[in-house]
């Protein structure tokens, strides 16, 4: 049943570029990017119970890695960029994680926020290296060695790049599915439920939290690369704490208690935002109201709402 639903969703996404206008297809790219980032983020938040308010840091690392590699180092292969960005993110995540996972709950959140802002002010102030507030340009990469030179920018993004990102989302989603179902994932959930008890049972809580942290950084960086290539630009706002807040928002919107919640959250958030922005300049206010409603009335997110509705239909 679940497998059938996933295959149906993938097929639907695959035929989408043939059915809807290119505008909607370009909207799917950030949704894929955030989907990947949030899969990682939710390993930490939903499964391990650690709320990071600084994960935009790793999205920004991904974006800036893409910028530096394409525009400065001349590395054009998308595969190498993704690997390089993920490597950079893990490299940063290890010291940051080592310091952060000593804390739990709100202290973890604040410390990660501080690290995120540390990186933001680095990006913002060191103009010569990072381009300051204008950021860096990200060039079009080669996909599996092909340049697709006959396609213009939009055609490239809604064509080959779209399918590549979809495939990557499916692949990374499958890997994450295996991770949360593995003994490692069960350890993380044990830590979430009761850290001390888990430690008495022999779970090495800090090491496992650190690993979860590194994996989430990996996913966020891959999402960041995708986001930056879609926009064509890496700018410091990607590392700002409000962007981290948006990541949490999307996760909770979809429902962090469910594996697919963050994905649904990413897609709904992107579409909601683009629709609201076309209706009103005060879209942030409406987003705030939606967040209030989700937090107060539907803490299990859209997935939770759907599950409740489904259960009611089945009963009647």
């Amino acid at each position: 049943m679940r497998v059938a639903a996933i295959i149906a969703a993938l097929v639907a996404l695959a035929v989408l570029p043939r059915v809807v206008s290119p505008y909607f297809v370009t909207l799917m790219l950030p949704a894929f990017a955030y989907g990947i980032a949030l899969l990682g983020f939710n390993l930490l938040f939903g499964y391990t119970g650690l709320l990071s308010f600084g994960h935009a840091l790793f999205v920004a690392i991904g974006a800036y890695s893409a910028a530096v590699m394409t525009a400065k180092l001349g590395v054009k292969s998308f595969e190498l960029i993704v690997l390089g960005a993920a490597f950079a993110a893990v490299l940063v995540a290890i010291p940051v994680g080592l310091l952060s996972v000593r804390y739990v709950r709100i202290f973890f959140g604040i410390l990660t926020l501080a690290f995120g802002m540390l990186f933001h002010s680095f990006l913002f102030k060191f103009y010569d290296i990072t381009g300051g507030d204008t950021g860096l340009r990200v060039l079009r990469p080669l996909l599996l060695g092909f340049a697709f030179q006959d396609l213009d920018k939009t055609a490239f993004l809604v064509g080959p790049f779209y399918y590549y990102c979809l495939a990557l989302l499916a692949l990374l989603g499958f890997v994450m599915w295996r991770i949360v179902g593995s003994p490692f994932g069960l350890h993380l959930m044990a830590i979430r439920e009761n850290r001390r008890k888990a430690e008495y049972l022999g779970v090495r809580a800090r090491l496992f939290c650190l690993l979860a942290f590194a994996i989430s950084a990996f996913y966020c960086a891959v999402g960041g690369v995708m986001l930056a290539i879609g926009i064509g630009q890496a700018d410091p706002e990607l590392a700002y704490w409000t962007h981290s807040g948006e990541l949490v928002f999307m996760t909770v919107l979809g429902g962090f208690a469910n594996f697919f919640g963050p994905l649904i959250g990413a897609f709904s958030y992107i579409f909601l935002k683009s629709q609201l922005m076309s209706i009103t300049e005060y879209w942030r206010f409406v987003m705030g109201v939606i967040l209030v409603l989700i937090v107060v009335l539907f803490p299990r997110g859209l997935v939770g709402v759907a599950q409740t509705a489904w259960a009611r239909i089945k009963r009647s």
Partner: protein
Amino acid sequence: MNAFFDLLLGGVFHAAVLFLVAAGLQLVFGVQKIVNLACGSFYALGAYFGVTAVKWAIAAGAAPYLFLPVLIVAGIAIGSIIGPPIEALLRTVYRRDEAFQLLLTFALVLMFQDALRFFFGANPQQLGDTAMVYGTLSAGSVLVPTYNALVIIASVAIAFGLGAFLQRTRFGRILRATAENREMSEAMGVNVRRVYATVFTLGTILGTVGGALVVPTAAASLDMPVELVVEAFAVVVIGGLGSMRGALIGALIVGIMRALAIRYYAELEMLAIYVVVIAVLIARPAGLFGKPVE
């Protein structure tokens, strides 16, 4: 030497304002265990409302030197208006996970951002040189705008007032008891709901007064809320979450560090503050005056 004193005074002035916001944050965290991301939004609201109130007052014919009391009254007024309804909203998530509490205050940040834009416009607002009606003080060869000195004095007075309130009054004892153990104080007959409403409103007022006091020297802008949060967080993390003394010391460290960094190496402005934050957290995980967790 003079330049150094100017610098130091600039830092202390910034620290005085930062302390007010951080004190509000600490008070709310100490008693309600909620980290309020919207503290910066309250600060910005206080700033905008302060500008508006002073303009009204001057248009109504008030003497220019009355603007300091006008600002303080405006800060207190707007804080006491918005504090209670927001507390009522937060009340719905008191028993939930911290993640939800944090997210709800993040929702407030988003809403305030647009609400401020709607009511006060997108352009920064400032009071011009109204602050100079108080003239300058000179101590030896060091010149200080009297206004800045007054704000520093007011902030110190508020710090002592808060300390006395928490330590010596009956309500202060009830607050500390509630912070220590909510269930037990409830069992002893404390009206926790009222305590929470009061504490949150007080925290809001500290934020709005802080914003109102800063506006004669800096423009009120839409970047204020999100930028200030980060500095206020740095203050409370350095000082230790929930500690008033920590807020005072932390504000001084952040204020002076920032002034020094801007003077000597502008690229390091915020970077220097985060480095201190991270250093403190590594050396003293609970902050300088905080209680260790667990």
